[in-house]
Structure formats: C-alpha cells, structure tokens
C-alpha cells in the first residue's frame, strides 16, 4: 500500500479481521464477567423457565395441549420475547456505557484502536448477545417442550398436521426474522449510550427511548387519531413492536395453518421499518462517537 493511499484511508487503514475478532473477544470476556450482564441473562433464563411452567399449566387448565414440543417452544417464544426484549435492550445499553462509566474508553482508544473499529466490535458483540438471548428461550422452549410433549411431529387426533422437520424449519426462519427488530434495537441502545457518561444514565434514557418507540405506534391509534395514517401507518414508528410480526406468523403453525410464504407484506414492512431505524441510529451512533470529545 502506498503512503498516499495509506494516509487517505485514515480511520480504516490497517484494518485486520484478526484484530477485529480480538476486539470482539475482549468485549465478550469483559461483559460476561460483569454482574449486570450475568444478571440479565439469569433474568432471561428465569423468565423462560417461569413462562414455560405457566404456559404448560395454563394449557393443562384449559385442556389444550401444544401436542408437539416445537409448538410449545413457539408459544414460549411469543410470550418470553415480549418480556425479554426490554431486558436485552438494557443489557445492550451497557456495552458502550460501561467504558464511559469506568473511564476505560481511554485505555482502548490509546491502544491504537480507532473509534469506528471499536464501535463495530461493540455492534458485533450486541448481535452475539441477541443470538445468545434467543438461544436461551429456544433451549428452554425446546427442552421443556421435549420434557412435556416430546419433539415429535405435530398431530391432532392422530392426524399428522406437520412433520417435525417442518416445525423446526419454520421455527428457525422465524428466529432469523426475529433478529431484525432486535438488531434495530441494538442500534437504538448504542445510539443512546453514545451520549452517556454513566451506565445508569444510558439505561434510564434507553428505557425511556424504548418505551417511547414501543408506544409510538400504539398511542395515536388508540386515541382515535387518524391524521395521515393512510400515507404512513402509525405502527411504522413503533419499531420495537415489530418483534411480534414473525412470531405471530409462526403462531399460526400450531393451529394447523401452514405458512405459505415468509416473504409477505408484514415481514417486508418489518424489514423496511427496522432497516430504516437501524440505518439512522447506526449512522448517528458512529458519528457521535467519532465526533465526541472524551474528557474521561
């Protein structure tokens, strides 16, 4: 690489994948040694276990049975992600704000790690945290489902509704789509915490922002406000609620309704809405961190 090219690349010069992965590993080691993140995952596990207990006993009470461990896992995911998402969001607020809270950002940036490189590693870490959180619900759902019903085909009165291979495939696709709103949430968490000086501040403002965007799509409709809704549905603003879209589509499966296509308008809308929010918050978080003076 010529000197001129090296200079013009500036921020990205000398980028190496090995170094990036090392940064991610550092993030993971640090975060998973921190009680707040450990506590967050314990809470998610607790929610998954309690929810599975409740789902099963409610099913028993109303004499409805999932019939298949996969169907049970789908029911658990639908309820568990609803409560788990804000907890996961708060955990993601910690990823950047922990450095501001303890002043350790200066240790990272003075070790010739660029700001953009650091932020990308933090985003990557957030996505790993999302996968792990979903993994907890999936593991508990399938584990408890296997315990209660076994992981067999979905049948009703001896008739085969869906073989287990279909149940597993549809569940996997739903989880992939579930990643989309959660990734968009990670950008909101990172954006909020890029302004923060403390972890507490990032989490409080993060929670306010989360609730704001969560309610934004609901309030005008509930108040009967219809202005401009045929141009832009209010639900478009409430992007955290988009997490229900793939789960609701998946929820048809245990009822015996086959999923003809995943690439339906609701999913497309979810991808567009979450994509726009992600691009906005992702870009803003990078700009804020790049421009900010760190007087730690």
């Amino acid at each position, binding site marked *: 690489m010529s000197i001129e090219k*090296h*200079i013009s690349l*500036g*921020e990205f*010069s*000398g980028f190496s994948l090995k170094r990036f992965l*090392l*940064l991610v590993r*550092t993030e993971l*080691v*640090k975060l998973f*040694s*921190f*009680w707040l993140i450990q506590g967050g995952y314990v809470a998610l596990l607790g929610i998954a276990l309690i929810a599975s207990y409740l789902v099963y006993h409610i099913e028993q009470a109303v004499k409805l049975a999932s019939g298949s461990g996969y169907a049970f896992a789908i029911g658990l995911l639908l309820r568990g992600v609803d409560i788990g998402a804000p907890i996961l969001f708060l955990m993601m607020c910690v990823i950047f704000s*922990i450095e501001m809270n*303890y*002043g*350790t950002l*200066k*240790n*990272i*940036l*003075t*070790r*010739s*790690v*660029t700001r953009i490189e650091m932020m990308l590693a933090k985003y990557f870490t957030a996505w790993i945290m999302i996968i792990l959180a979903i993994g907890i619900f999936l593991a508990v759902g399938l584990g408890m489902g296997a315990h209660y019903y076994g992981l067999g085909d979905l049948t009703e009165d001896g008739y085969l509704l869906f073989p287990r291979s279909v149940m597993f495939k549809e569940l996997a696709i739903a989880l992939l789509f579930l990643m989309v709103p959660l990734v968009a949430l990670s950008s909101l968490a990172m954006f909020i915490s890029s302004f923060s000086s403390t972890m507490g501040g990032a989490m409080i403002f993060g929670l306010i922002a989360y609730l704001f965007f969560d309610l934004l799509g609901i309030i005008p409709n509930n108040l009967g406000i219809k202005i401009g809704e045929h141009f832009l549905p209010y639900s478009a603003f409430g992007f955290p609620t988009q997490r229900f879209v793939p789960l609701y589509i998946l929820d048809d499966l245990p009822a015996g309704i086959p999923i003809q296509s995943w690439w339906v308008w609701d999913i497309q809308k979810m991808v567009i809405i979450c994509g726009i929010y992600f691009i906005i918050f992702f870009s803003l978080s990078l700009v804020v961190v790049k*421009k900010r*003076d*760190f*007087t*730690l």
Partner: protein
Amino acid sequence: MHFSPSSFNFKYKMSQPVLEVRGLSKRFGEISAVANLDLTIYPGDVYGFIGPNGAGKTTTIRMILGLIHSDAGEVKIFGYDLKRDYRRALSEIGALVESPAFYPFLSGYRNLRLFGDLSRRVSRERIFQVLELVGLSRRAHHRVRGYSQGMRQRLGIALALLHQPKLLILDEPTNGLDPQGIREVRNLIRRISQEEKITIFLSSHLLGEMEKVCNRVGIIYRGRLIAEGDVDELLGKEQDWVEVQVQDTESAQRFLKEKFPGLNPEIKKAGWLEFKKQDRDLAEINQALVRAGFKVFSIYPHRRTLEDLFVELTGESADVY
C-alpha cells in the same frame, strides 16, 4: 521569555523528535484551553510538562492521544501524523491519562490481559514482569475493586508499560497519592527511564517533583507554553545565589564590593547578605571575610528552582498550586 529548541544539546539536534506538537489549539466555548502550543520531545527525554491546575496540561495530552479533537494544529508521533495515520502514531505509545481506569470487577491481571491484547499479544510473563516492576505481582489476581488509590496508579503505569512502548505519557501520575506514594512513583519513573530505556512525557503541577526526575521541561500557563528547554539551562547556574549570615553586615557589604568587583551583595534582611554566586568559590569569599575580621555565622548556597522560574515567568505566587 522563551527558550527555543536551538539552545538544546547537540544530541537533540541530531535525533528525530519522538513527539512534535505544532500550533495546537482547543477552545471549550468561550474558554481557550490551549492556544497555539508547540512542544518537542526527543528520544531519551524525561520531559516534564508543568503548569498549575487548569493550565491546559490534560487537554493537551488528550489531544496528543486523540481522545479529544483539536481545533487547530498538528501532532506528530515518531513522524506519523495523528490525524492521518492514527494507528501507527499511537502504536508505540503507553499512556496513563489523569486517574487510572479499570474494570473493578476484574483482577489486575485480567485487566492488563484485556487491554494489553488490544495493542499486541502480550505474554503472561510480560504481564507479571510489569506487575513486578510496579510492585503488584502479589495482588495480581485480586479484583481491582479492592485496590488502594496508589495501587491503581501503579497498575495504570503497568498498563502503560505493558506493550513496551517507546514513548510513555503519564498525566499527573502522583495525583491523589500520599508522600510515600509520591516517592514510590518518582522512583518508579526513574527506574523505568533507566531500565526500560524509553522516552517519558510527564505532566504535573508538583514542580519540586518534576525537578527531581526530568531533564527537560515545558511550562504551560493559561493554555500557552511560556518556556521550554533543558532543566539545567532553564534554571541556569548564573541564577544561583548565596546567603551569608555575617556580623556587621553593612561593613561586610562594602568589603565584599571592594574585594570582589561585580559581586554586588545586598542586605535583604538584618544580619544577612545576599548575592549572585556567578561561579565564585564560596570558600574564598568566606576566607576573605574571616581574615578581614568579620564573624561569618553561616553560608547558604541556593539554586533557582522551577517554582522560582515559574513565579518569575508568570508573576503568580507559587501557592497557586
């Protein structure tokens, strides 16, 4: 009064600067924190960056390390421009900026491992080597939460040294330490300079401490560099003075003026004469006074300190510290 780099020793002129700062400026709203600052640090220097609290030392260091953006000026580290070649510029620097920062829920060893790996892979042996150097090897696996301020400060220095940098930047390394801790850090800096053979850029408002460890200093006052140079040159032997407690002060004053032309002793307080030393032999002066029948009670040679120089340059009282 400004001491230009042209007065440096020959060895300095021959080597490329480790750190070059030219025209660095930073404003925070209406306040000019640093204004048109120039600094030059050469290989092997223990450079003291001194000034009172709020003079702009930490702001300058933060700009040198890229933690805050400068409004104007350029920083070159080992010849690499900080803005254009950030990674290379910082790759040979170890820094401790203001208070040391660590994850309190991790051990000292674990903190060093995590941050150390970001520069370049460090071995377990190297981690224990620096922990040994700062006297923390026995507490290596204890959580930082339980460390005292002095221990954290030393761990901060260990972190800065971990990847064997060629330039060590220490911002107020004795902050918050008791006299014993200050002495330990001072000795540590001397040891690092001698054993690790690295250039050290040290900021502090403790002028006495800086005089003891630095060979060159830059004095910053209200965001501007008002003096920079070799400590011996700045303090200058010609500035050394002597106090003599002698009987019959006025007669002794007349006697010395006649006997040693150009000496010009003054009576600053009753019973005491004071004059510039000017490389004169004090034994000879003492002998002349005694032979002339004057009783000499005591002779105190004085050397100008950085504090004296600072007061002289700024007109401020030294008690601003």
